[in-house]
C-alpha cells in the first residue's frame, strides 16, 4: 500500500497545491514540496529492504478481467528512478518558487508539476504493464499542460501540441506493444514478463512487439527520427524543462528499455535496431547542439544526444553496457538539471538566453557561473566530474562492439559524437560564462536569491562527489540498479573509478576533448560550414504533415459530407437495396405454393389508376397542388384495397387519415412555394431514377415472393381464438389494438401527441424572429372575398351533430365491429375542423374553446392510468377486464376497461389533429394582410335591421 502512496502522494499534493494557492505562494510551494518530500521519505523507507535484495510490492485489483491492477513494486531500478524523480522534483519545486513571477499562476503550475511527478513515479514503480501504460500516457498529458503553461506564447502551444502528438502517438503504439507482450507472456505483471524473457524472444510475434514498444520508447526519449519535438518543448518555463526534458520524462523511454531489458534485449533484432538509433541520435543531436544560440535549445539537443547514448548502450544488449547506461542516467540527471537551472538563472537575470548576446557572466554572477561551469565540465566529460566516468565506460564498451562486421564503425561514430559533445560544452562555457564582461545585457545580471542557486549547488556537489569518489558515492546504487536491469544474470566485472589505466577509451576521450575544443575555437568557420549544409527542419516537416492531415480530412469530409439530402438518402437507399439483394441472393429460395387469387376487372382498373398516379407524381411533382391531388387518389385507392382484402378497420383509418393529411398539406402549400424549381440536369434524375427502379423492383419481388407462399403458423391464431373469450370483442383487429397489443397503441398515441407538441413548439416560435418578419412581409394573394361561403357554413352546421353522432357510434362499436377510438377521434376532429374551415378559425375557436393540448395530455393520462389501474389488482400494466351489465329498460350491454383506454386514444387523436391544424392556421393568419371577416356570413348576411330575426 505504501508503495502505491509514493505515486499517489504527489497527486494529492497536486490537488492541495491548487487549493492552497489562496493562502499564498509560499504555502503553495511548501505544500508541493511537502508532498514530494513525504513521498520521497516513504520511498526511502523501503530502500533498506531493496538494498537487502528484496522486491517490495503491493497490489490492489482494478480490472482483474484483463489483468489490469494497481500493482507497484520497488526493486533497484524502480528505487533509483523514483528517487531520482522525487529528489530532483524537490529541487525543482524550490527553484520554481523563486523562478515564477507574480503574474504566473503558481497553483496551477504546481498542480501540473505534481501531477506529472505522480505519473512519473507511477511509471517507475508500476509492476503491471497496463498500469504502466496509464502512467505513461499521463506523463504525456501532464507534460502537455506544463509545456503550454505560458498560454500567451504561441511556441508554448505549438510545442505542447507537438509533444503530445508525438509522445501520445508513441504511447498508442506502446499500448499495442504491451498488450502483445502480455499476450505472449501470458501475464501483464512485469515480474512474470521479465521471467519469461527467453520465451518472449523466441515467439513469432517478438519482432512486431519489439517494434511497437520501441516506438513508444523512442518517441518519449526523443530518439531519431522523433528527436524534433524536444527542443520545441523548451518553450516551457525553465523548471519544467529542467525537470521533464532533462531529468525525468525523456528518460522514461530509456527507463522502459532498461525495464524490459531482460525480456527483450540481447537479440540480434534488438541490437540491430536500438544501438544504431541511439548512436545516430547521439551524433546528430550533438552536432545540432553546437549551433544552438538559445541556451535551452543547446541543452535540449544535448539532452537528446545523451539520451541517444543511453539508448545505444542499452541497445548493445550486454550487461556491461547496461551498467554504463545506468551510471550515465544518474550522471546526466545531475549535471543536466543543474545546467537547465543555470540557464534559467541566466534568463531570469540577464533577460536573454541567447549565447550571442551573452558572455563573461563569471564576472557578474560568480556563484551561478561557477556552478554552471562545473556542470558543463561534467557534460563535456572532463575528468574529476561524473560525466567523464560514464563516458569512459561508454567508449570502452563501444570499442568492443562490432556492427555489421565493421569493428571500427561504432567506436568511430561514438567518438565523433563525443567530439561534438565537447564542442557544444565548450561553447557554452566560453561563449556564455567565460570571456570578457559585457555591458549590453537587457538587464544587469546579479546572482539570484539563494533559493534559486542552492538547488544547482546541491546538484553540482553531487557531480563532483560522484566524479571523484564514484565507487563510494554511487557504487552501491549503480550496482543495485544495474542488477535490477539485467535481471537474474550475474553482474559483469566492472569498476567505478577515475583511473582504469591507459585504455583505448582514455585515448578516444582525450582525442575528443582536444578536437572538441578546437571545434569551439574554430566556431565561426564551423558555423559557415554548417550553414552551407542542407538542414531539414524537422518541425517544419512535422507541421507540414499535420497540416496535410488536416487538409486531407477537410477535403475528405467536404467531399463526403456534402450535406445534400439527395446524396445521403441516395447512398442509404442504395446500400439498403444492395444489402437486401445480397442477403436474398446468397440464401436458398423456393417459389411458394399458395394459390393465387383471380384477377378482376375492377382490380385491373384500380391497378392502372395506381400506375398512372405513380407516373403522374414522378412526372408532374413540380406542381405541388397536382402532386397533392395525385397523392389523395393513391390514398383513396389504398383504402379501397384494404377494404377489398378484408381489412375494414384499415380502410376506415386510411381514409380518415387521408383527409386530415390533405388539409394539412394544403395549409402548408399555401405558404410554401407553389412549384418546385426545375431539377438540375438529366444525370441526377437518371441516377435517382435508377435507384428508385431498383428499390421498386426489389420490393415488388419480395412482396410477390411473400404473397405466393403459404402462411406459417402465426401467433395471430391465438388472437383469433381469444378475441371474444379473452378480450371480450369480436373485432379481432380492435382487440389486438386495445388489448393484446395495447401497449403498441399506447406508444402510438404518444407518437401522435408528441407530433402535435413538437408542431406546436415549432410554430409557436415562428411568431418571432426571422420567420415572423417573413410572414409579415408575405402577402396572401387572396382573390376571392368570400371567406365563409354561406352554403358551406349552413351545411357544416347541420353536419356537425350528425358527424359527432357517427363518431360516438364508431367509438362504441369498435370493439366488436370496424371502428374504435382512433377512427372515432379522427371523425370528430374532422367534424370540428370542418367548422374551422367553414366559419373561420377565430369564430369557431371562440365558440368551441377546445383546449387541444389538455386533450392530448389528458388522453395519454387516461390511457396510461387505465393501464396502471391493473396494478391495483396485481395484474400487469394494461391488463383488461370486461363484464356485462344489465339495466332495466336499457338491457344488457358490455363494459370493458379497454373502452377507457380507447377513450384516451380518442382524446389524444382529437387533440392532436386540432392542435396541429389550428397551429398552422394561426401562422397563416399572420401572413394575412387583407382583413378576414371575423365569422361566418357577416356582415351582409346578418339579418338586416328591418328583417325579423331568424328563429326566435
Amino acid at each position, binding site marked *: 500500500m505504501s508503495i502505491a502512496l509514493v505515486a499517489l502522494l504527489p497527486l494529492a499534493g497536486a490537488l492541495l497545491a491548487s487549493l492552497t494557492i489562496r493562502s499564498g505562494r509560499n504555502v503553495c510551494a511548501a505544500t508541493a514540496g511537502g508532498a514530494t518530500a513525504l513521498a520521497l521519505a516513504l520511498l526511502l523507507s523501503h530502500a533498506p529492504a531493496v538494498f537487502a535484495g528484496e522486491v517490495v510490492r503491493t497490489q490492489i485489483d482494478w480490472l482483474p478481467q484483463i489483468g489490469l491492477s494497481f500493482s507497484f513494486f520497488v526493486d533497484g531500478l524502480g528505487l533509483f528512478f523514483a528517487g531520482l524523480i522525487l529528489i530532483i522534483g524537490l529541487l525543482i519545486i524550490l527553484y520554481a518558487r523563486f523562478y515564477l513571477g507574480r503574474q504566473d499562476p503558481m497553483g496551477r503550475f504546481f498542480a501540473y508539476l505534481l501531477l506529472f511527478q505522480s505519473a512519473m513515479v507511477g511509471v517507475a514503480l508500476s509492476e503491471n504493464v497496463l498500469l504502466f501504460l496509464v502512467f505513461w500516457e499521463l506523463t504525456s498529458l501532464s507534460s502537455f499542460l506544463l509545456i503550454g503553461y505560458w498560454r500567451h506564447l504561441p511556441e508554448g502551444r505549438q510545442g505542447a501540441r507537438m509533444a503530445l502528438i508525438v509522445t501520445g502517438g508513441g504511447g498508442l503504439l506502446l499500448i499495442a506493444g504491451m498488450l502483445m507482450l502480455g499476450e505472449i507472456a501470458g501475464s501483464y505483471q512485469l515480474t512474470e514478463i521479465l521471467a519469461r524473457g527467453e520465451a518472449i524472444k523466441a515467439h513469432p510475434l517478438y519482432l512486431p512487439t519489439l517494434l511497437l514498444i520501441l516506438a513508444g520508447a523512442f518517441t518519449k526519449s526523443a530518439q531519431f527520427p522523433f528527436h524534433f519535438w524536444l527542443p520545441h518543448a523548451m518553450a516551457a518555463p525553465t523548471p519544467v524543462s529542467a525537470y521533464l526534458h532533462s531529468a525525468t520524462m525523456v528518460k522514461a523511454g530509456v527507463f522502459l528499455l532498461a525495464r524490459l531489458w531482460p525480456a527483450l534485449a540481447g537479440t540480434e533484432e534488438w541490437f540491430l535496431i536500438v544501438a544504431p538509433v541511439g548512436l545516430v541520435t547521439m551524433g546528430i543531436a550533438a552536432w545540432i547542439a553546437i549551433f544552438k544560440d538559445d541556451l535551452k535549445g543547446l541543452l535540449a539537443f544535448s539532452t537528446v544526444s545523451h539520451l541517444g547514448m543511453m539508448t545505444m548502450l542499452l541497445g548493445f544488449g550486454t550487461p556491461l553496457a547496461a551498467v554504463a547506461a545506468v551510471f550515465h542516467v544518474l550522471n546526466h540527471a545531475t549535471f543536466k538539471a543543474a545546467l537547465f537551472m543555470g540557464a534559467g538563472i541566466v534568463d531570469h537575470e540577464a533577460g536573454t538566453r541567447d549565447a550571442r548576446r551573452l558572455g563573461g557572466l563569471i564576472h557578474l554572477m560568480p556563484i551561478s557561473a561557477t556552478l554552471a561551469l562545473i556542470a558543463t565540465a561534467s557534460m563535456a566529460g572532463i575528468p574529476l566530474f561524473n560525466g567523464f566516468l560514464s563516458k569512459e565506460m561508454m567508449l570502452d564498451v563501444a570499442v568492443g562492439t562490432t556492427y555489421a562486421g565493421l569493428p571500427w564503425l561504432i567506436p568511430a561514430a561514438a567518438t565523433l559524437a563525443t567530439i561534438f559533445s565537447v564542442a557544444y560544452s565548450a561553447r557554452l562555457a566560453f561563449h556564455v560564462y567565460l570571456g570578457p564582461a559585457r555591458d549590453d545585457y537587457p538587464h544587469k545580471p546579479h546572482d539570484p536569491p539563494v533559493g534559486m542557486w542552492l538547488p544547482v549547488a546541491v546538484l553540482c556537489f553531487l557531480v563532483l562527489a560522484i566524479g571523484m569518489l564514484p565507487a563510494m558515492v554511487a557504487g552501491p546504487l549503480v550496482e543495485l540498479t544495474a542488477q535490477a536491469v539485467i535481471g537474474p544474470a550475474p553482474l559483469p566485472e566492472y569498476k567505478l573509478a577515475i583511473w582504469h589505466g591507459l585504455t583505448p577509451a582514455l585515448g578516444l576521450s582525450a582525442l575528443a576533448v582536444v578536437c572538441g575544443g578546437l571545434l569551439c575555437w574554430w566556431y565561426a568557420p564551423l558555423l559557415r560550414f554548417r550553414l552551407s549544409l542542407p538542414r531539414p527542419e524537422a518541425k517544419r516537416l512535422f507541421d507540414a504533415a499535420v497540416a496535410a492531415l488536416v487538409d486531407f480530412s477537410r477535403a475528405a*469530409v467536404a467531399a463526403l459530407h456534402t450535406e*445534400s439530402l439527395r446524396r445521403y*438518402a441516395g447512398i442509404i*437507399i442504395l446500400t439498403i437495396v444492395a444489402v437486401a439483394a445480397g442477403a436474398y441472393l446468397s440464401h436458398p429460395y423456393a417459389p411458394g405454393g*399458395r394459390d*393465387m*387469387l383471380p*384477377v378482376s376487372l375492377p382490380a*385491373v382498373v384500380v*391497378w392502372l389508376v395506381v400506375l398512372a398516379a*405513380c407516373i403522374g407524381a*414522378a412526372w408532374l411533382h413540380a406542381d*405541388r397542388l397536382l*402532386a397533392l391531388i395525385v397523392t389523395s387518389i*393513391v390514398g383513396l385507392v*389504398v383504402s379501397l*384495397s384494404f377494404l377489398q*382484402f*378484408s381489412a375494414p378497420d*384499415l380502410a376506415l*383509418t*386510411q381514409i380518415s*387519415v387521408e383527409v*386530415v*393529411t390533405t388539409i394539412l*398539406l394544403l395549409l402548408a*402549400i399555401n405558404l*410554401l412555394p407553389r412549384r*418546385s*424549381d426545375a431539377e438540375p440536369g438529366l444525370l441526377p434524375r437518371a441516377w*435517382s*431514377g435508377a435507384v*428508385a*427502379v431498383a*428499390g421498386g423492383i426489389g*420490393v*415488388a419481388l419480395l*412482396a*410477390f415472393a*411473400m*404473397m405466393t407462399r*403459404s402462411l406459417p403458423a402465426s401467433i*395471430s391464431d391465438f388472437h383469433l381464438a381469444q*378475441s371474444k373469450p379473452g378480450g371480450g370483442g369480436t373485432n*379481432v*383487429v380492435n382487440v389486438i389494438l386495445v388489448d393484446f*397489443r395495447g401497449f403498441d397503441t399506447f406508444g*402510438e*398515441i404518444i*407518437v*401522435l401527441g408528441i*407530433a*402535435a407538441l413538437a*408542431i406546436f413548439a415549432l410554430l409557436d416560435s415562428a411568431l418571432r424572429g*426571422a*420567420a415572423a418578419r*417573413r*410572414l409579415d412581409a408575405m402577402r396572401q394573394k387572396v382573390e376571392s372575398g368570400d371567406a365563409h361561403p354561406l352554403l358551406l357554413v349552413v351545411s357544416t352546421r347541420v353536419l356537425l351533430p350528425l358527424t359527432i353522432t357517427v363518431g360516438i357510434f364508431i367509438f362504441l362499436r369498435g370493439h366488436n365491429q370496424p371502428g374504435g377510438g*382512433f377512427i372515432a377521434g379522427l371523425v370528430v376532429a374532422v367534424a370540428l375542423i370542418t367548422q374551422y374551415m367553414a366559419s373561420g378559425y377565430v369564430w369557431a375557436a371562440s365558440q368551441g374553446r377546445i383546449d387541444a393540448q389538455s386533450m392530448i395530455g389528458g388522453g395519454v393520462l387516461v390511457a396510461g392510468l387505465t393501464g396502471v389501474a391493473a396494478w391495483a389488482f396485481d395484474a400487469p400494466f394494461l391488463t383488461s377486464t370486461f363484464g356485462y351489465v344489465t339495466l332495466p329498460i336499457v338491457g344488457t350491454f358490455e363494459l370493458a376497461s379497454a373502452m377507457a383506454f380507447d377513450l384516451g386514444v380518442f382524446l389524444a387523436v382529437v387533440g392532436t389533429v386540432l392542435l396541429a391544424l389550428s397551429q*398552422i392556421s394561426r401562422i397563416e393568419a399572420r401572413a394575412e394582410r387583407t382583413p378576414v371577416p371575423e365569422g361566418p356570413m357577416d356582415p351582409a348576411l346578418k339579418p338586416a335591421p328591418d328583417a325579423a330575426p331568424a328563429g326566435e
Partner: protein
Amino acid sequence: MEFLVATAIGALTATGIYLTLRGQTFPVIVGLAFLTYAVNLFLFVTGRLAIDKPPIISPDAAAYTDPLPQALVLTAIVISFGMTALIVVLALRAFLETGDDTVAAPSLVEAPPEGESPGAERP
C-alpha cells in the same frame, strides 16, 4: 391478383424513392408519403391476400384473414401520420426561417461566416 398488388407496391416504392431524392422539401414529403403507402401495403400483405374474410368473429364466417398485420398496419398508419404532420410543419418552418425550400444543410467544414455564431445562443 398477387401480381397486381406486388407490382403496385413496387411502383409506389419506386415513386416514393424517386421523389424522396428530389432537392426540395415538398417533393420529398410527397415521396415519403408514397413510401408510407407502399410499406403499409407491404406490411398488410404479409398476412397474404384474402377476400371477404374480415377478422370479425361471427358464427357464419368460414375463415378469417390474419388480423395481426392489420393491427400492425393500423399502428403504422397512425405513426406515419404523426411523422408526416411533423415533417410538413418542419419544412414550412424552415422555409419561413431561411426563405429557402431546398433540402441541403450548411456545410460542416467550411469556416462559419463572419457575424454568425452558431453556438453562441444564450438561454
